[in-house]
C-alpha cells in the first residue's frame, strides 16, 4: 500500500477514535483503558511475521519474545476487561 492511502486510513481512524471515545461513558473509562491496551497488542501481527521467517535467527527470536509479550497483553487485557464489565450489573429487584 502506498504511503498516502495508509496516511488517509490513519487520519480518518483518528477522527473515528475521537468521536467513539467521547461517547464512552465516564463510568467505563477504566475498562476502556484495559481494552485499548488489549487491542493495541495487535502489534502481535508484526511479531508473528518476524517469528515465521527463519532466515535471520536474531529477528526470529525477537519475534517470538514479542509474541509472548503481546499475548500476555491480549489475553490479560481482554480477561481483566471482561472481569470488570461483569461487575457492572443492575441489581435484581427482590
Amino acid at each position, binding site marked *: 500500500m502506498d504511503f498516502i492511502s495508509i496516511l488517509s486510513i490513519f487520519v480518518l481512524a483518528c477522527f*473515528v477514535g475521537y468521536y467513539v471515545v467521547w461517547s464512552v461513558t465516564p463510568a467505563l473509562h477504566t475498562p476502556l483503558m484495559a481494552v485499548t491496551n488489549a487491542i493495541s*497488542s495487535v502489534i502481535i501481527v508484526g511479531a508473528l511475521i518476524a517469528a515465521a521467517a527463519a532466515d535471520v535467527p536474531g529477528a526470529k527470536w525477537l519475534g517470538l519474545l514479542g509474541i509472548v509479550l503481546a499475548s500476555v497483553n491480549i489475553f490479560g487485557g481482554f480477561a481483566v476487561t471482561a472481569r470488570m464489565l461483569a461487575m457492572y450489573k443492575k441489581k435484581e429487584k427482590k
Partner: protein
Amino acid sequence: MRRLLLAAPFMVLATPAHAATGEAVNPWVALAYLVSGVFFILALRGLSSPSTSRTGNRFGMIGMLIAVITTLVTHFPTVREEKIVPGPNFPDGSAIYLPDFASFGEIFVAIAIGAIIGITIARRIAMTQMPELVAAFHSLVGLAAVLVGWAAYLNPGAFGLLVGDGIGAVSKVEMGLGIAIGAITFSGSVIAFAKLSGRMSGSPILLPGRHLINLGTLAAIIVLTALFAMAGPSETMPLIIVLTVLAFLIGFLLIIPIGGADMPVVVSMLNSYSGWAAAAMGFTLGNTAMIITGALVGSSGAILSYIMCRAMNRSFISVIAGGFGAEDGAGGGEAREARPYKQGSADDAAFMLEQAEKVIIIPGYGMAVAQAQHALREMTDILEEKGVDVKFAIHPVAGRMPGHMNVLLAEASVDYDKVFELEDINSEFAQADVAFIIGANDVVNPAAKTDKSSPIYGMPVFDVDKAKQVFFIKRSMGGVGYAGVDNDVFYMDQTMMLLSDAKKMVEEIVKALD
C-alpha cells in the same frame, strides 16, 4: 512428493514470507485486516453503556482473532528447500518453500505462555491495583513494539521492506519512530508502575536542568531518526542502537519528575503512546488493523488525559513538566489555626441518615484504601429499604485512574444507575438532606471556587455546602488532602465530623441502623 502436496495450499494463499519483492497485495488479506480494525472500533463503541459493553469486549476479541489468524495463514513459517525438480510453479526448479511445522509449534508455545501469564494476572489482580496493572500492560506493548521494530530492521525481507539492497527511507523513518515511541512507552510505564505500586516513592524526582536535558534528548532522537533514514545500509546499525537507548532514557526521564497525584494523567498519556507506537508499526508494515487500532488507542489515551487534566484544572504542559507536590508545605501549613468543629458519633449519623429523604455519598480514594466500599453498599441497601433515596457522586479524579472509582463501586455491587458524574449531580446538592463524604477531601473543598491563591483553585468541586447536613468521615483532623490545603467544609455549621477509620465508621453506622 508428499511434502510438495502438503505445501500446495500454502502456495496459493501465502506469498512466501521471504518474498523480497514486498508484501503481495492480496485483496482478501487486506480485507481481513480491515474487518479486524472495524471490530476494534465496535469494541470501543460498545463501551458507551454498561449494557452493551460486554458485547463490545467480545467484538474486540473477534477482531484480534481475525488479525492473528490472517497473519498465521499468510505468513505460515516456511523453510527453503533447494534443488527441486522444475514444475509449473517453480520454473527454475532451484528452490521451494515448504511449511515449517516446527516453527509453527514455537509460535504456538509463545502464544500459550503469554496466555497463561496474562489470564493468571487478570484473574488474581485486585481492583484497587488496576492502575498499576494497566501501567504494566502498557510497558509490554511498548517493549513489543521495540522488538517488532528491531526484527523488521534485522530482517526487512520478511516484512517486504527491501528496496534494492536496503530498507526504503520512508520505512526507516516509520521504523525509527515506532521503536522510539515504543521504548518511551516501555520505560515510562515501568516508572509509572513503580510509582503506582509503591515500589518507588510517589514524590517527584527533580534533576537540575531537566527541561534542557529532556528537550536535548528529544531533539537528538529526531536528528538520529533522520540520519538513520538517510544512511546507507551498512552504516545504520550504530544509529538505531543509539536511537533505541536514548528513547528508553527519555521515557524514564519524562516520568520521574511527575508526582504520584498526577499519575492518572500519566497512565492515560502512556495509554495514548502505546497506541501511537502500534500505529507507527502499522505504517511500517502497511497493516490496516494496526493503523486503525493505533489511531483509536492513541486518541483514547489523549482524550482521557485531557479529561483528567480538566478535572484537576491543570494544563497538560504543567503535568508533563512535573514537579507538582514537591513544593508542598509552603502553602497551607502555617496559616492553619485550630478552628471549632463539631464531632459526631455513628449513632448520630445513623439517626439523621434514617430521617433523610435524599442522601448523596461522595467516595474518594481513601474509601478504597480503607476497603470500606462493601460496608458502604450495605449501608446503602439498609437506607433504601427504609425509603431513603441514595446516590453516589463521583469526581473524575476520585480514583487513581480514569473511572477507577466506578469499578470499585461496581465491585461492591453498587447499582451503576445510582452512580453519577460530577456535572450530572452537582445541582442536586441543594435538595439533598445529607452529603456523606468518605475518603475524599480536595474534591469538596470550596477554596477551589473562592480562594485564588489556593493550589486547587479552578478545579471543579462538589457543592456540598448546599446540602442541609454534611457528614465527613476522616481519620483525624490533622491530615489534609494531597494538595495540602485546609478545607472550610470541616468547620461549617451543618458539618459533622466522623473521626474514625472509614470502614469501621461505616460498619458502626450499619449496626446502629439495624
